[in-house]
């Protein structure tokens, strides 16, 4: 699955989202539960702001010294017998992995959930190369079995599906014959997946954090599927976005603590696994051969710019769980595997404005995302910054907004025109006004009033009211 999901345009995606009442209910419920759990976990520590400050400090230090730490990481992995490949593009990463598959004559690949492999469309590359690719995270597995339905949440990818839909998919595709009870569905998946682990040639994982000082990397899951993916196949390939590293184990634990609390409100998830190189000489389980693929794919273009803080992200989804826009439109509306506020900032940077120029507008700029971010990314400010860039440099603002801004610029530039405009506004808007609201506005107001009302201009201008008041004639 690539980073871009679906072929519909933004408006259509939003329409689909708003009309999906189950999804909207599920998203609202999830936001409440996950948001509350995150808040409780933060409150329990009592000094959450200090934790956030530390998280921010660590992430900023790593980004400012990224070249140094990546070099150190690669040296230490090679010392332990692992192979490191630096891929500037998605194509380079895919070609390298395809090459390993060919050399190993691999037929079956088991995967643990990884966003970067989706970003580079690794699964379709491997399938084209003749491999069977099995996602083992339960949510990802459900989506894969359902004809590769796209994920709608970073932490809970199948959030938009109800248990009856999952039962139907399992019945049609896996010969499942039991009820829609989550326990029975999950047990069936367990039985199916057990066989896959034991017969897979290659295991592929993402990387939550790599540790430069030791050449280790950590996988954070609740299910433990990453552990089986890395214990049973003879060859293991781990793919990481180039920014996902920390200097030492001491910083690793801080970021893992921030991640698990922010994502699901847990002190730690059930399984956190720290792996260093391939298995040792006499070990029985663990991979004989280990490859780490470090992916740029547009990230270096973000470094050194005003958008650099987005690379601090640790993929906890806390921002998604508080976002009022996500709540209304759901994850698929973003058209990217990176949804919510983080997706609205990151997708245009990695995928380009041509594809994702609407996303920075899919925000109320309320700042709730910024407030919960455990590594203090100023998300709403970056969204605002995107809008500035889109309008000023790229000239890609929606046409209605450009016209409105141009008209406002003209009108506001001359005192005479401004006076005329503001006096004429109530009369000009009269045909569209009902009471003190405009519900079917013309021109630039049309898009706005399709989904909400716009306050009608006051019949009395502020200036006139003020002048009258000074003369003692206005209402108080």
């Amino acid at each position, binding site marked *: 699955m690539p980073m871009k999901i679906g072929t519909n345009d933004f408006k259509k995606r939003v329409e689909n989202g708003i009309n999906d009442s189950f999804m909207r209910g599920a998203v609202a419920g999830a936001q409440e539960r996950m948001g509350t759990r995150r808040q409780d976990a933060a409150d329990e520590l009592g000094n959450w702001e200090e934790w956030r400050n530390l998280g921010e400090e660590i992430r900023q230090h790593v980004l400012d010294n990224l070249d140094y730490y990546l070099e150190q990481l690669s040296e230490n992995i090679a010392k332990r017998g692992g192979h490191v490949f630096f891929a500037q593009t998605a194509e380079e990463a895919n070609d390298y992995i395809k090459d390993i598959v060919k050399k190993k004559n691999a037929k079956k690949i088991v995967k643990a959930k990884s966003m970067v492999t989706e970003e580079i469309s690794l699964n379709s590359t491997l399938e084209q190369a003749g491999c069977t690719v099995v996602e083992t995270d339960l949510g990802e597995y459900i989506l894969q079995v359902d004809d590769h339905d796209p994920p709608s949440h970073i932490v809970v990818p199948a959030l938009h599906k109800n248990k009856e839909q999952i039962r139907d998919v399992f019945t049609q595709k896996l010969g499942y014959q039991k009820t829609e009870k989550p326990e029975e569905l999950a047990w069936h998946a367990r039985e199916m997946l057990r066989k896959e682990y034991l017969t897979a040639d290659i295991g592929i994982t993402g990387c939550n954090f790599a540790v430069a000082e030791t050449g280790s990397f950590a996988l954070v899951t609740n299910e433990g599927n990453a552990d089986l993916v890395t214990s049973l196949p003879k060859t293991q390939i781990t793919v990481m976005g180039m920014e996902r590293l920390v200097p030492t184990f001491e910083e690793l634990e801080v970021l893992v603590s921030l991640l698990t609390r922010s994502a699901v409100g847990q002190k730690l998830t059930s399984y956190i696994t*720290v792996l260093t190189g391939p298995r040792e000489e006499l070990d029985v389980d663990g991979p004989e051969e280990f490859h780490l693929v470090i992916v740029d794919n547009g990230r270096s273009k973000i470094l050194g710019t005003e958008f650099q803080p987005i690379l601090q992200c640790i993929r906890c989804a806390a921002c998604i769980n508080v976002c009022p826009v996500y709540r209304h439109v759901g994850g698929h509306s973003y058209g990217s595997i990176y949804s919510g506020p983080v997706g609205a900032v990151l997708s245009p940077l990695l995928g380009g404005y041509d594809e994702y120029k609407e996303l920075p507008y899919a925000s109320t700029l309320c700042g709730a995302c910024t407030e919960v971010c455990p590594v203090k990314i100023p998300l709403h400010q970056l969204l605002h910054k995107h809008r500035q860039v889109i309008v000023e440099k790229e000239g890609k603002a929606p046409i209605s907004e450009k016209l409105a801004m141009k008209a406002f610029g003209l009108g506001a530039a001359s005192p005479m025109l401004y006076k005329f405009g503001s006096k004429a506004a109530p009369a000009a808007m009269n045909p569209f006004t009902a009471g003190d609201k405009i519900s079917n506005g013309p021109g630039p107001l049309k898009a706005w009033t399709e989904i909400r009302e716009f306050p009608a201009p006051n019949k009395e201008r502020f200036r006139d009211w003020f002048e009258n008041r000074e003369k003692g004639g206005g209402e108080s």
Partner: protein
Amino acid sequence: MMTGTIQNREAFLEKITNSLGKSRRTNGVTVPEWKHRPQDTVLSEATADKLIEVLKNQCLKIHTSLVMTDLKTLPAALNKVVQDYGGGPVVSWKDERFTDWGLDSLMKEQWPSENIEFHQWDYTKVEENIRQAERANVGITISEITLAESGTVVLFSAKDKGRTVSFLPATYIALIPKSTIVPRITQAAQKMREMHLSGKEVASCINFITGPSNSADIELNLVVGVHGPVKATYIVIEDL
């Protein structure tokens, strides 16, 4: 250990250096003294007994049973948990500590005599170990560091300490010497780093395990045992 390969590094890092607008640093970067260190204060005043209380309470939240015992009663306590889980087959690490703690007669005599199959991980038997772990009902390992705050056991893999002993069997038991209990993951990370800096190689697999395998992927309902064990018990040995 054979040295691995590194490909395409220079051009890749050069691009990063250029973006950062600084000159390339190949040495001299040190980890700063962080301005904030909230991790050090969590449970820093807690006594060993207080840490056990914290661990007990956390076990309630992570769906894990906790049994307190001492060396004298350890064999009986372990046997009871195994019987409660439905008996064998049982698989465990091969570790001298089982002998030191007086478990040999339980594991190697009593269980086989009661038709409870027992397999001890043995690297010379290669793939046979995985087959045994896959069909086992109970897996037993020892916690090297135990985190009170989160209720986590930490395992270091080695030739006779297979990674899958804690994942493949249907249920899981961790033996926890009381002396291994620390406040939180901070102390484990420090210990792991000290081991590395003193020249001891980091285990190729370090597992932090906090209760049984679970998932909330279907309508956010918690389901236990999606991939790994369905149930877990910690046995804390007080006089170790």
